[in-house]
């Protein structure tokens, strides 16, 4: 019964009332999150406006890009502090997850520090260890409500050259070169290294779980 429920679209009334903001900043691939939300029946707003972000029911911090450039942009606009102080459920995706950590080896930059763990560069150990880690890989030990209904072994889509090590906030692991954090969770902050918006029906379930937290 529980599994069947997960495939039911979000309740239309709940959707209409749900106020989702996506953080607008200098990262690529932000629109794919908006499209994925649209497929779930949610019209999110893309914004860097402090009031809109603070008052949203859900905030998504997505993107692809380079960490030090992204941090400089966020600091200039005071978005670094604003994101740290958000109280509603927040979901970081890919570079979003990395920026929520303490420090990144990419551009050697201090990040938001929501998760007290550094972001490291993948170091290949064998010829088959290609970097970027690109493609579909499996979630292991998925925990937190973000993965409600998950058993482990589900495939999600990754594209990244830097990773978050396994740490006390790890909410799911994936194996590539070594085990790393496929997802993090602390209080109201959730983050995924993979792209739920590009991970087919599995990704849609994760986004739906986030909206239903």
């Amino acid at each position, binding site marked *: 019964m529980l599994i069947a429920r997960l495939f039911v679209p979000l309740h239309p009334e709940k959707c209409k009332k749900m106020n989702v903001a996506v953080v607008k900043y200098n990262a*690529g*691939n932000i*629109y*794919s999150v908006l*499209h994925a939300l649209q497929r779930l029946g949610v019209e999110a707003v893309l914004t860097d406006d402090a009031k809109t972000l603070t008052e949203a029911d859900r905030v998504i911090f997505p993107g692809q890009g*380079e960490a030090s450039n992204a941090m400089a942009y966020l600091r200039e606009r005071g978005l670094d502090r604003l994101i740290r102080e958000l109280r509603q459920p927040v979901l970081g995706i890919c570079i979003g997850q990395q920026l929520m950590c303490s420090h990144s080896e990419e551009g050697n930059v201090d990040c938001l520090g929501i998760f007290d763990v550094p972001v490291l560069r993948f170091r290949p150990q064998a010829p088959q260890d*290609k970097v970027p880690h*690109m493609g579909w890989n499996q979630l292991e030990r998925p925990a937190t409500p973000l993965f409600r209904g998950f058993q482990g072994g589900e495939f999600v889509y990754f594209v990244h050259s830097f990773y978050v090590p396994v740490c006390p906030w790890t909410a799911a692991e994936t194996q590539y070169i070594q085990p790393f954090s496929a997802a993090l969770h602390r209080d109201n902050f959730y983050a995924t290294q993979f792209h739920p918006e*590009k991970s087919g029906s599995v990704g849609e379930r994760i986004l739906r779980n986030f909206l239903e937290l």
Partner: protein
Amino acid sequence: MLAKRIIPCLDVKDGQTVKGTNFLNLRHAGDPVELGRAYSEQGADELVFLDITASHEGRKTFAQIVQRVAAEISIPFTVGGGISELSDVERLLAAGADKVSVNSAALRRPGLIDEIVRHFGSQVCVVAIDARLDEAGWTCYLNGGRVPTQRGLFEWAREANDRGAGEILFTSMNHDGVKTGFACEALARLATSLTIPVIASGGAGQMSHFRDAFTLGQADAALAASVFHFGEIGIKDLKTYLRNDDINIRL
């Protein structure tokens, strides 16, 4: 474990898929978006859309197709065909493509790879190489395989790798359309000498050919067009076959 990827490639001309698609009972089999969605539902891991239109009007139509794919399909997709400068890349990424593939333009002006990587990151830059094996070895070709160059496959692939490309899409012109299998020897040499993923292309005729591309050829992904379009190989059947052969596949 990271799964090997199966990638159908769709040629698009004036907004319509070019090759025959008399399967799947699609109402609009000529619509690249509907065909792409059908492949996605069958388990394709990514999609490639190649624009083979020459006209300016056709290019605008292709950008609209890209927008629709981005809005309607929830797996990653690459677009290519006729990309010659950074503004082409910008336009296609803005329309919602996840990656772009560059071919002739990068051979003519390798600095294009650096520009794409600097502006948008390695992950969006697929370098496609068409090469033919002759007495002199593997030679790269321009313009869809019509014009030979002085560049060898392995040294050009290495240069693209070093300039920051995210993936190499290698098509063997000797094998393309012949349906006798991928160029596994050359693939293995690429896979072991490069630090980025390699996509095998050209030669798929049977399911065992995909297995060989992943085992003998050590490819990270395999791309095909006609065997999928004509329904000779179903993506679901192929993935089950590969999984039964102990290849890590997303099912």
